[in-house]
């Protein structure tokens, strides 16, 4: 989508409004475009080279997306910082000010989710949780209090924290917690950051956590009226509540920050047919109609529902004809999406689809052994080796290379040799690396080794870096073992992870957040997945049904024209009872189209 496309009246108001804003954006309302324009406006209005526009996104991919779109339009982004809340806290607060915390002043490293999960799993071996769906939450409270109420969970949490501390590791929750502590205890830090950041844009506001609010609030209240907050989100699309997201209404946000916010609404949908809009609106709690302004708003499309009418083993056999039909109607493969609540269901299906439907390309990030390592430095190195300087990445690669140089120098505390010190030189070296190795992981091992040799990095002296590399390969290997044979492992298959997104997308509901497809095929819409068992068991009934509604809202609103819902039968719970259709979905009476 070119960003120069003119804005609708609603969008224009949202971009041009001055002061603190909460934009409530319904699905398909051009939220990202509005955010981009607000960022561009911010960049244009900067008064000093000492200021930065901050755009906080929910995922690194979303941040890359914003950056890439601005890069493509040739907009100067020197003074833009985009990234997730965690990387923001790490880069702007924890790293530069770590000297002020006794626990951090002698160095620290960041533990990724994979490692923290491993630690918790180890601790649980000796001290198991009483209930099957009990969980240890690592989210930290502003007060630093133990967030777990269960006796065992609370104990594990304490041990977990102690273990990370002795290993000089911070998890994502620590990063936020220490950021908040630093800002609270040293108001000058907040004042300084406030002077740097006149505009802070936050995407997917509905999914941010309490500590995110705390951190932002410390910064923007430091120098009253000098900063503008720009929140964009949709309360109905909050699907990360069980991971600590704390959706807030506009008055609640105003209360948190201590100043008023103007709530603006984007109520025009540019994505779906009116029929689809009317359908997914029924999973929504808010009021007010959503009007479709899509060119094809009046199309009938298709909305179908297999309610316990097919067995899980027949999923592929059911899905293939649906896909064929869309393809036959001239819908390009990348406009078709197959999704389910959990990767555990997505990956076997993707594997079977790839095998049984060889003539059609698939874009299944879950199939890549690398997809869960995005935060890992070696993922970033691999990304450089697995992409080339063609039009697709020519703008992004120099930035990725710069990031790699920065992180390698930071983690080794060494300067790279002069021959690798600039992004141009690093890319030149990487582009000229030839290897006969065809196996993906073996190829990466080989080129990593060569890069280390050229960079004179001896991993024996850099335990953190060595650990991330081990983690990177261990995760990839695990993934391969778990999905034996399903995943192509050659270099070209790995390259696909970064290739242009062509092929039918196979992903999870969370994985396609923010995206849109002409045809959406969703399966696994069962009580226990939608909502999750944890919410059913630990939450109030209301919370569980709300979660289900939000997930269904997100799933259904991805579709432009065709939506196929599947609640397959034949899946059994741990106690071997059959799964039922998600109650929220079952309760909805609708005259679905017949297939």
């Amino acid at each position, binding site marked *: 989508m070119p960003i120069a496309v003119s804005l609708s009246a609603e969008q224009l108001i949202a971009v041009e409004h001055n002061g603190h804003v909460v934009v409530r954006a319904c699905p398909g309302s051009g939220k990202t475009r509005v955010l981009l324009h607000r960022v561009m406006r911010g960049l244009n209005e900067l008064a*000093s*080279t*000492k*200021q930065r526009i901050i755009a906080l996104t929910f995922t690194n991919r979303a941040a890359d997306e914003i950056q890439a779109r601005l890069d493509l339009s040739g907009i100067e982004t020197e003074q833009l910082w985009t990234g997730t809340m965690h990387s923001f806290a790490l880069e*702007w607060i924890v*790293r*530069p*000010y*770590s*000297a*002020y915390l006794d626990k*951090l*002043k*002698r*160095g620290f490293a960041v533990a990724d989710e994979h490692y923290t999960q491993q630690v918790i799993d180890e601790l649980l071996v000796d001290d198991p949780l009483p209930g099957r769906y009990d969980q240890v939450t690592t989210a930290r409270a502003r007060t630093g209090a133990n967030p777990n109420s269960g006796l065992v969970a609370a104990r594990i949490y304490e041990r977990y924290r102690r273990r990370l501390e002795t290993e000089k590791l911070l998890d994502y929750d620590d990063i936020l917690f220490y950021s908040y502590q630093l800002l609270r205890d*040293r108001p*000058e*830090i907040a*004042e*300084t*950051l406030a*002077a*740097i950041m006149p505009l802070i844009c936050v995407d997917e506001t509905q999914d941010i956590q309490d500590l995110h609010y705390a951190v932002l609030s410390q910064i923007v209240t430091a*120098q009253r009226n000098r900063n503008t907050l720009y929140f964009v989100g949709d309360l109905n699309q909050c699907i990360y509540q069980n991971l600590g997201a704390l959706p807030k209404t506009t008055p609640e946000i105003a209360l948190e920050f201590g100043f008023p916010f103007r709530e603006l609404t984007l109520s025009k949908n540019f994505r779906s047919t009116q029929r689809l809009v009317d359908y997914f609106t029924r999973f929504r709690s808010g009021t007010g109609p959503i009007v479709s302004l899509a060119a094809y708003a009046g199309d009938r499309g298709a909305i179908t529902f297999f309610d316990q009418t097919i067995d899980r083993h027949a999923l592929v056999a059911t899905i293939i004809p649906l896909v064929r039909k869309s393809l036959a109607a001239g819908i390009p493969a990348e406009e078709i999406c197959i999704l389910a609540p959990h990767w555990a269901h997505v990956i076997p299906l993707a594997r079977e689809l790839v095998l049984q439907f060889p003539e059609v390309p698939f874009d299944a990030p879950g199939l890549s052994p690398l997809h869960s390592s995005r935060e890992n430095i070696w993922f970033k190195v691999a990304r450089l080796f697995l992409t080339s300087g063609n039009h697709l990445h020519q703008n992004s690669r120099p930035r990725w290379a710069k990031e790699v140089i920065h992180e390698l120098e*930071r983690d*080794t*505390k*060494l*300067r790279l040799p*002069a021959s690798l010190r600039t992004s141009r030189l690093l890319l030149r070296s990487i582009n000229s690396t030839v290897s006969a190795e065809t196996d993906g992981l073996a190829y990466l091992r080989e080129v990593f080794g060569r890069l280390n040799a050229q960079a004179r990095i*001896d991993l024996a*002296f850099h335990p953190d870096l060595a650990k991330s590399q081990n983690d990177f390969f261990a995760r990839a290997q695990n993934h391969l073992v778990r999905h034996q044979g399903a995943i192509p492992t050659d270099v070209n298959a790995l390259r696909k992870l970064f290739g242009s997104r062509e092929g039918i997308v196979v992903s999870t509901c969370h994985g396609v957040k923010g995206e849109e497809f002409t045809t959406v095929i969703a399966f696994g819409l069962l009580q226990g997945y939608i909502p999750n068992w944890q919410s059913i068991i630990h939450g109030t009934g209301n919370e569980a049904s709300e979660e289900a509604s939000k997930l269904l809202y997100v799933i259904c609103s991805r579709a432009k024209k065709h939506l196929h819902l599947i609640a397959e039968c034949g899946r059994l719970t741990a106690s071997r009872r059959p799964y039922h259709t998600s109650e929220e979905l079952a309760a909805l009476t609708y005259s679905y189209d017949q297939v």
Partner: protein
Amino acid sequence: MHISSLQIRNFRNFRNVKFSFTTGVNTFIGENGVGKTNAFHALRLLLDEGLPRNAISLRETDFCRAGGAWQGHWIIISIDFGDLDPSEGCQILKHLAGHMNGSQRGTHTLFFRPNTEARKELHELSKTNGAEAIKSLTKLTLDDYEAVLTGRATADFNDDAVYQAIAGNFAAGSFPDPHDDDQHLLGVRTNPIHQEVACTFIKALRDVLAELQSYRGNPLLNLLRGLEAEITIGDAKKITDMVEQLNTNIASLDEIKTLSTGIQGALLKAVGNTYSPEITIESTLPDSMEKLLQRLGILVGEAADPDYRGDLSEQSLGSANLIYLALKFLEYQRKLSTDRVAHFLLIEEPEAHLHAHVQKTLFTNLDSEKTQVIVSTHSTQISSISRIKSVNVLAKAGADCAVYQPAQGLDDDTINRIERYLDAVRSTLLFAKGVILVEGEAELIMIPAMVRAVFGVGIDELGLSVIAMNASFFEHIAVIFSDDRIRRRCAILSDLDKAFIPLPDSPESDDKIQMHARASQLAGVRRQTALNEFTANNPWLSVFLAEHTFEVDFVLAGNAWETIQTLEDIYTREADRTAASERLNGERKIAATEVLRLAAKEGKGWFALLLAEKLFTRTVIPTYILSALAFACQDILTDRTFRQIGLYRIREVDFEEVIPDAIRQRIDELISLPTSEFVTFYLANLPDDPLSTLYREISYCQLL
């Protein structure tokens, strides 16, 4: 925002020093070769964008030799900033280097140190075997070194204990774990800050003309650059069209065409068709606005001839320098308003470029809020010097260099008093290696004259300055010599004013003269007590008192002959001369009274000038003055100078009772002696010679 201090460890000739700075104009004072340029370079490594990026990757020769073998040592250059307020465009600098503790200070530090791997290895070795660790140091090469920039360091790098804690104990062979570095002390890693500030270095013997004509570093070009964007398209088009027309017109002149055909013809004749290149002659005035602007130059007019405009190369070096500086100021004013929080102007020896009065005007007109100037000088004629608060004195100390702040720790009243006293001439006080403070003109004239006559060297060759206090109090000036400030010896020379006439036991029976003498004597004792109290516990100060007063002590020391010679100039009548001469040769009381009468008659200063002309090799330096000389030059007098003086005395003193002929005849043999042997010989064979006395006095001082 300004630089408040600079700490250096192990860099070039600085083993361990600290410079202090104030807002506005600051001065480095020091003799040539003392390291002023190195101090500038240290600042530039952290502040000057114009240095090559890899400038902070230092070399072996950058390690201070006074520190012994360099391997394993750290070079530390740390700059402290004051008034770092995030609200004034300083926010990024504050984020990179600011201390978040309410002090509005910031610190930016460069470490050039063994890298983590090398340090880890040292640490592991030192855990089990310190001696091995020390031995392994020699294996370190520059490849094992890294340059690291940090912000917010809090360590006092001048403190030896701190240095030992961070870099290691090189005597015991213990080295800390690099993975346990305390970032609160060392600071957190940061990017260079030189994009936040502007730093201009103006070399002493800079070729301004070449720089004004060069492409890079030409401030005029920098100012013109980007200007084309501000010119309206219409205006630009009008001009470029004219240039295009002009180029065409010139090229189409018949004369030009003929010439180009001629050249082409000549070429064809010479090399034939195959090898002959195509030749045309065209006017190459550029037709893009950007390039046209870069062709602009500065012309300078003259007051005497209003119609004349000359090229810069016709200007004197001084004017060219002035224009260069003005362009630099303008360049940074423009930058300052947009993206630089401060401008640091480092000027080496401005006396080489600019008249003192021009400097004064230039520096006082600077916006001292944002511009901080540091000038280095070895001239005493710098106007800004009188602000001792902003002076750093650089002094050689062997292979090392020491830096003193003459005003450190003094209250404003004291500083003001000293600054009033320090006019340009007296600022030699800050340059001297040793100082003798005296009461007045008589000593000011006589002491150098005595040294010249007796030792054959100028007082400045000894590195000493004699400074007259006139009406000031010793204490007000001598206060700048101390452990905290200037660590140079300062001898205070005064009078005890003891009466030389007998005084009755009871003051009540004093006559007028006796009363006066008794009052002076009492005042002298009080002065002695006060000065002794003032100098107690300060190894850099010592008091030396004439028993009576300078002229009296001089005559009584055995210099009646010299004094008598002045009578020629004072009296024309033979009778007067004879009478005075007899009195001077008389008993102590009479001689003393007579010399004071002569001094009063002629004026002390004039009398001293007369006396100075009469001095010769046998003149006796009064003991208290010799002691003062010994104290003041104890750190300076080398065996080589001793030898020079000794040879002078052996050659020139032709009095058997002072230098026996037997010794004088051995002069050639003595000349060929090694210096130390000469010293031993001299002390053993001429124990009563004033040079030997001076030497013994020095040894005595050093013993203390």
